[in-house]
């Protein structure tokens, strides 16, 4: 793992960093791996759920839903139940799940097994992004190894509990990270979100109760089980407990993933861990949370990585990414690129997203080229209003968030593109150089 060790103590996800052979069972066992699983089997499902509730762990897939609460939605006495592990990681700027799989695959598997036991799930499906081929092969090898060691399959570690683990590769669609689209894709259907209710906890995979959790969420489980929920929570603050693995990228000297305590760390701390803005340039803007979230400016650098504080600033921690933009960045261009991403990734199920992202994208292309009129630019807000909160799933809603926040924060820059015939920001950068 690259980067300095940010918090020598108080690491959870990356606590074994640097240990040799972590991708093998032996290597992982040497650092104490699978002790959590053994402990979990002794504790029993209810005690595990209690620890997870005490840990205050919230989902790391983007929606930050309290994990213990989600598990509690499973209807009593309905079996079989399934666990789906969301490794589809396709959010622009997000690559933490990849690191957790590449560096700590057994830790993930241990977390999966603990969770499956806590839920009494008979099968766990790890749905991994199609482009993560090497990572998929690694996970498959890890699962095979664990099967041989009787860590997976029937009578795990000699207990009465059995669980099959299946690794399944996606086919390259961002939408398949949305939990219900993931389930449809797993079932061999077109990957598109399902109508809710029923929620997956009630009627999920193959119509059975199903919990969907993110890779990072579950990678915390071995720690929570061995060290206790309270110890985990204490690493962060009361409102934002625990730690998180943030992906810092963009115009920084040392992009990478950094595990930091929640609530006590600020965006500026993260930026510094990544070596600050590159090439000695000035900071212009940042996007926390990945491609879906609203832009923040220099005035927000000292906001702590706390759910509420970031929400008050007008954005969200989303999937735990931070994309940094320096002074040469054209906010219209960034907006256009993100809008193109959503147009490309819209599943096409609902009208406002399917047609709205296309409309948005056409407009942003014209604006970037400097050929859009003031009237056209003015219609951007209308288009976005027709999409935000109106779509079938959050993809279409969030396709408007960055561009609208950038338009508000950098209105002059957007306006300067109108009828300019070219991009004024890039022209300005050229002149200055």
């Amino acid at each position, binding site marked *: 793992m690259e980067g300095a060790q940010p918090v020598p103590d108080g690491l959870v996800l990356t606590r074994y960093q640097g240990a040799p052979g972590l991708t093998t069972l032996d290597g992982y066992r040497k650092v104490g791996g699978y002790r959590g699983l053994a402990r979990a089997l002794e504790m029993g499902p209810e005690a595990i759920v209690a620890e997870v509730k005490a840990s205050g762990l919230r989902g790391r897939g983007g929606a930050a839903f309290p994990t213990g609460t989600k598990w509690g939605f499973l209807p009593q006495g309905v079996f079989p139940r399934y666990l789906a592990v969301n490794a589809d990681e396709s959010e622009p700027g997000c690559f933490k799940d990849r690191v957790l799989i590449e560096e700590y695959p057994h830790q993930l598997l241990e977390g999966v097994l603990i969770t499956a036991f806590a839920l009494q799930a008979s099968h766990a499906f790890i749905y991994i992004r199609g482009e993560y081929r090497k990572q998929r092969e690694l996970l498959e090898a890890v699962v095979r190894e664990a099967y041989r060691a009787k860590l997976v399959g029937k009578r795990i570690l000699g207990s009465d509990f059995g669980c099959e683990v299946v690794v399944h590769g996606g086919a390259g669609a961002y939408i398949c990270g949305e939990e219900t689209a993931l389930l449809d894709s797993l079932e061999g259907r077109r990957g598109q979100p399902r109508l809710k209710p029923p929620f997956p906890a009630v009627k999920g995979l193959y119509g059975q109760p199903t919990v969907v959790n993110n890779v990072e969420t579950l990678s915390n489980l071995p720690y929570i089980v061995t060290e206790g929920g309270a110890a985990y929570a204490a690493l962060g603050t009361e409102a934002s407990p625990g730690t998180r693995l943030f992906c810092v990228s963009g115009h920084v000297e040392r992009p990478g993933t950094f595990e930091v305590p929640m609530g006590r760390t600020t965006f500026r701390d993260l930026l510094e861990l990544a070596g600050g803005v590159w090439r000695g340039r000035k900071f212009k803007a940042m996007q926390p949370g990945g491609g879906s979230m609203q832009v923040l400016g220099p005035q927000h650098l000292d906001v702590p990585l706390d759910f509420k504080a970031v929400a008050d600033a007008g954005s969200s921690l989303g999937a735990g990414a931070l994309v940094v933009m320096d002074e040469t960045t054209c906010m219209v261009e960034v907006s256009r690129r993100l809008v193109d991403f959503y147009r490309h990734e819209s599943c096409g199920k609902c009208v*406002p997203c399917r047609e709205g992202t*296309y409309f948005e994208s056409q407009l942003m292309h014209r604006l970037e080229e400097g050929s859009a009129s003031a009237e056209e630019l003015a219609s951007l807000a209308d288009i976005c*209003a027709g999409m935000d909160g109106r779509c079938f799933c959050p993809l279409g809603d969030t396709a408007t968030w960055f561009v609208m926040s950038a338009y508000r924060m950098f209105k002059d820059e957007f306006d300067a593109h109108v009828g300019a015939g070219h991009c004024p920001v890039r022209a300005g950068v050229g002149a200055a150089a």
Partner: protein
Amino acid sequence: MGEASAHPDLVRVTVDDREVEVAPGTLVWDACERAGVFVPVYCAHKKLEPVAVCRMCLVEVEGMPKLQPACATRVADGMKVRTLTEQVRKFRDSNLEFLLLNHPLDCPVCDRGGECDLQDFTQRFGPGRSRQSIQQKVHFDKAIPLSDKIVLDQERCILCWRCVRYYEEVTGEREIVLQQRGVHTVVDTFERQPLRSQFQGNLPEICPVGALTHAKYRFRARPWDLRRTASICSHCSYGCNLFIDARDDQIARYASSDNEDVEDSWLCDRGRYSFPEYNGRERVTAPEAVVTGGRQVVSHREAVARAAGQLLRIISDRGPEAVAVVGSDLMTNEEAFVLQWLAREVIGTPHLDHRLRPTPHLDPADFELSIAGIEECDLILVLGEEPERLAPVLTLRLHKAATKRGRRVERLQPPYAWTEVAQPQRVGVISSELDRDAGAAIRDQLRGAGHTAQLLTIMERVNSRGCQDMGLLPGWLPGYLAAPQAGMGLPEILQSSATGKLKALLIVNPSAELEAAPEFEAALRGVEAAVVVTPHPGAASRGASVLIPGRTIVEKAGTVTNAEGRVQRVRAAIEPSLTVPTDLRTLGELAEALGTSLGVSPMATPVYEKLAAAVPAYRGAQAGMRARWGSGG
């Protein structure tokens, strides 16, 4: 609606300040309809599960921050729904703008123009302008023949998923799929394989726009060119309700109606696309009679007089039993009733029939089970392939019973037997007439074992049931009463005619089957007089001594009775191009000329009253109800 206290099981919902009470779990969309508030929908369809993809129906629900899809949201007690707020109005405008972004400017050449939900809602709720230039439209394939029946225009498709869901939910065949994603999404068949379903014709009807159209209706008409008549499909004994849309006395198309008790709004392709047979087929154009030296065109009045004269001569020379009367199951109940009356009461012969196959046994218990009742059975036994071959729409009802109602459907192969039912259950047994005895045996055996079992016998043609009910049979009077004297059935009538034992035939609306039978020509040659009333030329018209033009079933009014005994109305959808009296009038005039008056005007309604007096089960059944045969029916 009224005081809440009167309906403790209902919940109160307010839609735009109108209060309604509906059952818990009702969709907001349905509650709005109940309140008389129109909500535009594209993806929602009464017969399909909600998917909420088009977003057209988003409305405000008090207490919910986001607009909610009326088509997929269930009511809660005290819910306040608003459909006319600024927020809703603005969104509808936006959504229609989105839908039109990549929609072609095809209305003038689109078959759907004038009855298109996209046109209509745009007119009513949409933007008056477009903010995107047509150069930016995404283009797709147009005029793709998905089969010889259905044409797809991918550009006009608004991706409401109805066609895909129709296949998934209603037929279970999955012939249309979604491909690509985002703005490039299209519906198509997998690798452009042709559609094979026998229920394709429902697709253009559930499609809210002009994306799926009937090959046979392409460029044929605008809705305002059409005259619509509610009637019954004449192609089998299931009795599907439909609309006949005619333009200039040619049928342009059949359109589905929605009778939940019968077709449940779906038609089969055999029935739906059968209408061309009423457009182009050759007709008997004028009355003719054999006079000395050959056959001549005569007036209608003279034809009737000569027919009566020939029959009276034979009756007086040889006695009434030298005359036989033949109808067919394309006749209405009124015609069948009058024809058997004419045979029995006016002519005085027991020899009458309407089909070549003998009718061995008759019992109203053969059709105790209703079509809608199929869904209520725990177990449904279908004997062989014949019932579904005869009445294809039955297949959809069975699919619905199995998938939406969770019923067990078993298709049996001969030799038919069923023994395996544990707890007392409601069992439906469905057979064709051929297997009626086997069906009745299984039913009786199940009843003996304590189950509730009912039989439904599927018949062949549109009024096969009615002709039996009306006693157009040797040995059976109207209402399944045994006739005092058993007469000859059709095979015997033909034989006796050929050998000269019978001297005269009165033939009305002969079936295609009869027309094609070689023994029919021999029979016509063998008799001295053959009075024929028929719309189409054929063996009967060629062999007639008096020929009177008749009407086809889409040209007359009356009732027909379907396999389950439901009495339904057919109405004249087109007029024959030449003046042709109704068959009922011709029969009434013939009776008069033979010396007995019908006693009522020869029109459907008064004749129905007369027949209902003779067949009590038919009293009051005319409004589309099943005839009431004893306890079971």
